């Protein structure tokens, strides 16, 4: 497979996530869309790591190719932490206004 295919796939997924952030109003769904974006990046990173594994400098030392996957691992770590905090915030919001619609968030503006 050519790297372009993976790039395009990742970008399409990323865009879907982004469009989701743009159009959806349920904050949980928006958050899920962000998770999708992160995942598309993960996919891209892995693809790049496998690309570098057979080309260029990384061919000689496999750790270089590993780097990206380690990075993906850390992304997952961070994502997990983010989810914890994010869902806590959403729950807190729900407790207060019994809704998770981001359009209700308009006390702060102008």
């Amino acid at each position, binding site marked *: 497979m050519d790297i372009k295919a993976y790039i395009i796939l990742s970008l399409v997924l990323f865009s879907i996530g982004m469009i989701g952030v743009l159009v959806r109003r349920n904050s949980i769904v928006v958050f899920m869309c962000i998770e999708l974006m*992160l995942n598309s990046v993960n996919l891209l990173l892995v693809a790049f790591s496998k690309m570098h594994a057979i080309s260029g400098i990384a061919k000689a030392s496999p750790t*270089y190719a590993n780097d*990206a996957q380690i990075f993906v691992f850390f992304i997952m770590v961070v994502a997990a932490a*983010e989810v914890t905090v994010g869902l806590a915030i959403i729950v807190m919001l729900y407790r207060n206004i019994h809704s998770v619609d*981001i359009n209700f968030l308009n006390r*702060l503006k102008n």
Partner: protein
Amino acid sequence: MNTILISAIWGVIMMFAGAFIQNKSVAKYLAIAGVVILFIANAQELWTGHSLFNINSNDMLRTSSYNLTFLAVILGCTGMYFLLSGRDIEKAGTHVAEYFALIFFILCGVGLSATFNSLLMLFLGIEIITIPLYILTGSAKGNLKSIEAALKYFLMGAFSTGLMLLGIAFIYGGNPNASFYINQIAIGTGPMTPMIAIGLVFLFVSMSFKVSAAPFHFWTPDVYDGAPTVFTAFMSTIVKAAGFFAFIRLFENAFGQIHDQWQNLVIFVTLATLLIGNVTAIFQQSVKRMLAYSSIAQAGFMMFVLFSMNDRGREGLIIYAAAYSLATIGIFAILARMKDYTIEGFNGLSKTQPVLAFTATVFLLSLTGIPLTAGFQGKFFMLLSAIENGKQIWLVIAAVVFAAISAYYYFRLIQAMYFKEAVSETGNAEDINGAFKFLLIVNCLLIFIIGVYPELIVGWIYH
């Protein structure tokens, strides 16, 4: 290195202190002690050039006198922040020790983002900074504004994290060295490859988001407005300065040699930031929100360091960070004790609280950039660096026009304090004691000292 480790450790200590000690002010004093220790440890590292800890980070972290100087400034400002706003943190909620712990974790993240040499460390540093901030923003649980701010901040912050990661991925993909080390990004001096270019734009966007540069600033006013004032003070100063430091460190080390290829991005963002920050601030009635826009406007000035990317700019960034942070911390500390956050709330403050009014005036003058205050030196170094860069002088002219506009909203506050009659007889501020006033005056003196003799800070860079 000292900062990163000790702040992490101190964060844990604070956490446990929260579990075992019920007295709130103990947490505050513990935190102040922590900052002092951090400052000393950092000074030791800056002085001797060696860390207390011998840790092999595999070159993912790199210290230099420059970033240590920056950390010293940051820690100094944090110390001032604790001293001035410690009591407000106590009042912010029930989990005082935890708040302090989070702030120490943030300092750890600041340390990372000031010394990173790998994109991974940058990513971790930024996340360690932002995740606690989401929490602090939402810490006023009963306050819908606070929750709203937290959720907005969180959603948009996570979004920008996504953008940043995409950028990192593209940089990695386009880097034939297959490395995340920012000094190992093989880009040459010719035109960028599309991959690098895409990565660069995304990184630029996400970093602009973190430093709230337009047009990626939209979270800033709402979040700063909604968050508890005391935490707004922290995130609009120290965190923002750290963001800028990471920004310049990343772009200088990774893309410095092709600076002129992405300078147009900086110009666009700088102009947009100056315009939106300054112009929108004019209309604000709430001082807190006005300060939020002002922080955007100030970010526009700090963007010059990316525009010019020379020694003068680097020096300027540190001075600017110190000047801006000290002044903003001071003004927020005063704001936190005001009964009414609107500009009218400041009416006649000079009568009821002359010290507060005077110090607030000094802070505002510093933010405006009047000579003798640190703010002037910051702006001066920034503009000087841009002129040294030699290109696009019109940008500098635009910047000073906006600086003049900024006087408009800063002086509105001064006018309210000094030239308008107080509304109520009971006074505008509450809970003011001698120590607070004294600290404010110390803060003013610091601003003046830096304003008169900036080499006090700059000298350390070349230590």
